[in-house]
């Protein structure tokens, strides 16, 4: 269960101040898979960063009593001059995992072969996404925060990630940001619509999708 209590978050860049959330309170129930939709710039990725704890709110509290993943996105927290293997080892150490197990899993999942021993900066974005996704699947979390990552890669990789993610859903929950209605439909059972006006909760996906369509129109 993750709970936002009276959370405010704003950015100011080059003197332009942008309020993303003001005094937002919301409870993410553990039993549900939640889709997050909304236009660009509404704060979806920031919401995931706040939920993971990578970023602190300006005010308010965020409570977690489950193991939450880092936000799984395209770029990830990879160091470009280090090899795929070194990056995997590093993350597995931070999370106190069995490094050998994680490496084997990622090698098997990402199918990067010898590229695992090359610096990340030589990877294509598809390769990076495969590595990032494989790495996050190798570690057991109660809640996975997913930022569009399933939308990358070729058909084979997408099938594989779908299978892996579905297996995870037996024990874990996901909070997923996506623009794809198909993706949201296949993974989520409720959702949040995040627009510049604020946040609304929808208890089923159909109502989320129609509200999303209406907000885009």
């Amino acid at each position: 269960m993750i709970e936002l209590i009276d959370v405010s978050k704003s950015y100011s860049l080059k003197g332009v101040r942008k309020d993303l959330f003001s005094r937002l309170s919301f409870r993410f129930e553990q039993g549900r898979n939640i889709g997050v939709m909304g236009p660009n710039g509404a704060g979806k990725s920031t919401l995931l960063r706040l939920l993971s704890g990578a970023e602190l709110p300006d005010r308010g509290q965020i409570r977690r009593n489950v193991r939450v993943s880092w936000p799984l996105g395209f770029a990830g927290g990879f160091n470009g001059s280090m090899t795929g293997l070194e990056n995997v080892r590093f993350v597995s150490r931070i999370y106190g995992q069995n490094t050998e197990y994680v490496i084997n899993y990622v090698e098997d999942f990402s199918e990067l072969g010898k590229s695992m021993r090359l610096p990340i900066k030589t990877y294509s974005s598809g390769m990076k996404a495969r590595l990032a996704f494989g790495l996050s699947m190798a570690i057991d979390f109660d809640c996975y925060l997913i930022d569009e990552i399933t939308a990358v890669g070729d058909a084979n990789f997408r099938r594989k990630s779908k299978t892996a993610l579905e297996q995870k859903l037996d024990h874990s929950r996901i909070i997923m940001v996506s623009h794809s209605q198909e993706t949201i439909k296949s993974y989520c059972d409720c959702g949040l619509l995040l627009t510049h006006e604020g946040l609304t909760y929808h208890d089923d996906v159909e109502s989320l999708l129609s509200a999303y369509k209406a907000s885009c129109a």
Partner: protein
Amino acid sequence: MKDLLKLQLRVLGALMLRETRATFGTSQLGYLWAIATPALGVAVFVVVFGAAGRRPPFGASLALFFATGMLTLEFYKKLSTALMTTFNANKALLTYPAIKESDTLFARALLISSTYLVIMFLFYGTLILLGMASLPFHPEQFALAFASVCLLGMAVGTFNAVMLSVWESWLHIESIFSRPLIIISGVFYIPSNLPPVAVDILKWNPVLHLIEWIRMGYYSNYNSTVLDKGYLVSFSLLMLLIGLIGERLTRKQRAGL
């Protein structure tokens, strides 16, 4: 609480291994150079001054006197400048919620300090083997002095890192401040023997106190009239406090960029 401590140790351990790889490269040669460079720097000075017929300002060994000054100064400078660029180098890491920017500072400081522990061990060890020095006379004072180099270096390094992250020109301004250190820190002379009017000015320089303390620990009778441990430690703690508060206050600004 116990879990938090475990997490902290895990994060620091992983970061140190990563820093080792990033700093020294993949080859053992990289680490060898990191250890050899400061030591060779001192050696060059000793040879040049020795050839010029310079007599050691204190004790019987020119090499020992310069080493207590130069290695201490190099150690401090390495900490204060290498920590400065930590935030930029580790931006990608902040994806992982367990890692905070202060962890990257601590990990780098730990790695540098342990490297200098090895450097000093090897350099002083070599001098002892060559009969140019004895063991430190007051090892507990020497150890405390070493720790205070870590503390001051960490404090100024943290301050520098925060300053650089809000103001790019700090890179150049810092080098203006740190360049005269080799002259005003007592590396080549005994501060206690200077005229009082010079001492009154130089004693504001905390690095001078570091070197004095190291020498008090190494020599049996290096009676510094200048060393003020209270000033050194309070200065370091104050800088660390300012640095850490600054880190907290400017964190959001760095995340937004």
